[in-house]
């Protein structure tokens, strides 16, 4: 690439930087709990409870948290696999939260695609690889003559042999299946890919292959990733910025280097210290913060800060007021009373 081309791209990037590709504001996703013969709603599981953030084009935003923190629900609510309870999802300047299903399919679905966690459950066992990848092409009206060619091309991009096209999913290993899932997501040239735990079900050596593949594809097609995972190491590796969720709330959001070097929120600190990292040469053992207790139920979250019941640094105000996500350092947002 010539230097002029490079600056051109940089210019375009700067221009776009002002305009986020995805803007989520105050998104809530509550699920009703029904009970009794009449199926009356007796409560609500607040899976996602007021989350806001922006994603810039071409970047990777990682979302981390433990199981039940609402990170997967967040991904699904953004892509409208769930209808959000309230709040807005603005994609490329357009509010897609309340678009009709038909309109959504016509204008938005092509642009946002998803890669799922379980490569065994997310592929139809009765469809050959080719049929599986062709389906989105058919739905979105790619001319028939181009379809098969496109499948070959996609298989090649994700590093699978084009002769595999007529085989069934059970003939492939986990890593290969995840490659198929990625090929399917890329079939329509999306701008935003939401990846929900894409490497969690894979062995470490295969996991590294898939991460490298995702990085290559991002460069090649200028993709934007929303990367959801519980694995802090993987998220650190692939993301530009990282958001930490706890019980349906965003606790901290920062550039990855800031977040991992100097985590501000007590939950992030505890989370990072709990990761058992392989000892590497010349490295000191880190100080451990062990959280007592377990995650409260999202149907009945604590008052005030949702983390105060387990927080080693909780003060009086924590149990009374909900802390707001504020910019404490440049581009470093924290929802904690300690920094107000």
């Amino acid at each position: 690439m010539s230097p002029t081309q490079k600056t051109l791209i940089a210019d375009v990037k700067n221009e776009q930087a002002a305009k986020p590709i995805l803007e989520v504001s105050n998104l809530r996703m509550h699920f009703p709990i029904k009970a009794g013969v009449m199926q009356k709603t007796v409560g609500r599981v607040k899976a996602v409870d007021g989350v806001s953030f922006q994603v810039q084009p071409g970047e990777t935003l990682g979302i981390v948290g433990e199981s039940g923190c609402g990170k997967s629900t967040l991904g699904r609510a953004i892509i409208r696999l769930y209808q959000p309870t309230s709040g807005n999802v603005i994609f490329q300047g357009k509010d897609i939260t309340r678009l009709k299903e038909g309109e959504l399919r016509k204008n938005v679905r092509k642009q946002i695609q998803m890669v799922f966690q379980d490569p065994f459950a997310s592929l139809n066992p009765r469809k050959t690889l080719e049929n599986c990848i062709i389906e989105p092409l058919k739905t979105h009206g790619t001319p028939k003559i181009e379809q098969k060619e496109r499948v070959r091309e996609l298989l090649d991009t994700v590093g699978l042999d084009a002769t595999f096209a007529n085989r069934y999913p059970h003939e492939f290993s986990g890593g290969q299946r995840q490659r198929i899932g990625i090929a399917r997501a890329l079939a329509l040239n999306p701008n935003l890919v939401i990846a929900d735990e894409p490497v969690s079900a894979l062995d470490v050596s295969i996991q590294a292959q898939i991460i490298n593949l995702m990085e290559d594809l991002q460069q090649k097609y200028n993709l934007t990733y929303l990367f959801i995972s519980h694995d802090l190491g993987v998220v650190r590796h692939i993301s530009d910025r990282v958001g930490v969720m706890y019980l349906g709330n965003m606790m901290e959001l920062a550039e990855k280097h800031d977040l991992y070097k100097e985590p501000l929120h007590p939950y992030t600190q505890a989370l990072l210290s709990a990761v058992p990292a392989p000892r590497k040469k010349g490295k000191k053992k880190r100080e451990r913060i062990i959280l007592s207790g377990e995650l409260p139920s999202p149907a009945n979250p604590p008052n005030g800060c949702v983390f105060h019941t387990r927080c080693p640094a909780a003060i009086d105000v924590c149990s009374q007021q909900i802390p707001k996500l504020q910019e404490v350092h440049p581009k470093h947002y924290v929802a904690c009373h300690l920094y107000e």
Partner: protein
Amino acid sequence: MKDLLKVKNLKTHFFDKKQTVKAVDGVDFDIRTGETVALVGESGCGKSMTSLSIMQLVPGPNGKIVDGEVMMGSKNLLKLTENEMCQIRGNEISMIFQEPMTSLNPVLTVGEQIIEVITYHKRLPRKEAVKQAIELLNMVGIPRAEEIITDFPHRLSGGMRQRVMIAMAMSCDPKLLIADEPTTALDVTIQAQILDLMRDLSRKVNTAILLITHDLGVVSELAERIIVMYAGQIVEQASVDDIFDNPLHPYTQGLIESVPDIEGEIGRLNPITGNVPTPEQMPSGCRFAPRCTHAFGRCFEEEPVLLSKRHNTRAVRCFLYDEETGVKNVTDTKNTYS
């Protein structure tokens, strides 16, 4: 330190009409009293089958232990009758599993399941057993043990269930605890709690732990010695410090390099290419050779043996190291890098 368990040339194969799958293919290792040993490898490498073979819980009728010895003191566990083995399981050797929900009985209360172990092995009257069960639950850090004891497993969270499993496993002060992926199903903060608990308990009662895991992080937290398995065989054996500071086998090196760390430089990951071979396509020669970046002619023709340095616990199965001394073989490496 005394040797507690010696596994010699253990072979567990699975037979069906078409083929024989050699899940465990000639595994040798020993565990000393009070020591924590980790058995590491990717799925399908035979690490779980090794532990099930020790307990003689290999799923039949297809699975069979075809050869080898598991010596505990002067007893060969593989020669014991089923009745004699029942006296060992849960008493001298006990086991905890990955999925705490499926390994607890859903229709019995938590207390009942612990009491069963105590009354069976210690032959205590029920009243005494209940008292001990409460003590055990307290020991593993379960709050309100007197109430929890009458609860059913579905009322407990994953971390709590794993604590109950540990309480049950420790109820007869076993000499060896086999922990098969004990924290894989748990979140990191809960995982940290459980690892802490296991470390404390093994020190307190001097129980040896055979930890089976794919997570190198967990290994470095808990284990003293590591055994790395690949395709049914041991490829490297060393202390934790040696493994992380200076891994010898190319597979071990690959494993360590493929894990993205939470601190330090972020470079491109360096994964092992290809996939674990399926039993039908087991390569001749070294089983890792097709994926190995250092492989040379000999690797594809001969099977390397597990070499151990004299006066050292270190062992490696690789032609890059000299057969007599176990020291890196310079001539061979030159060939491979060119």
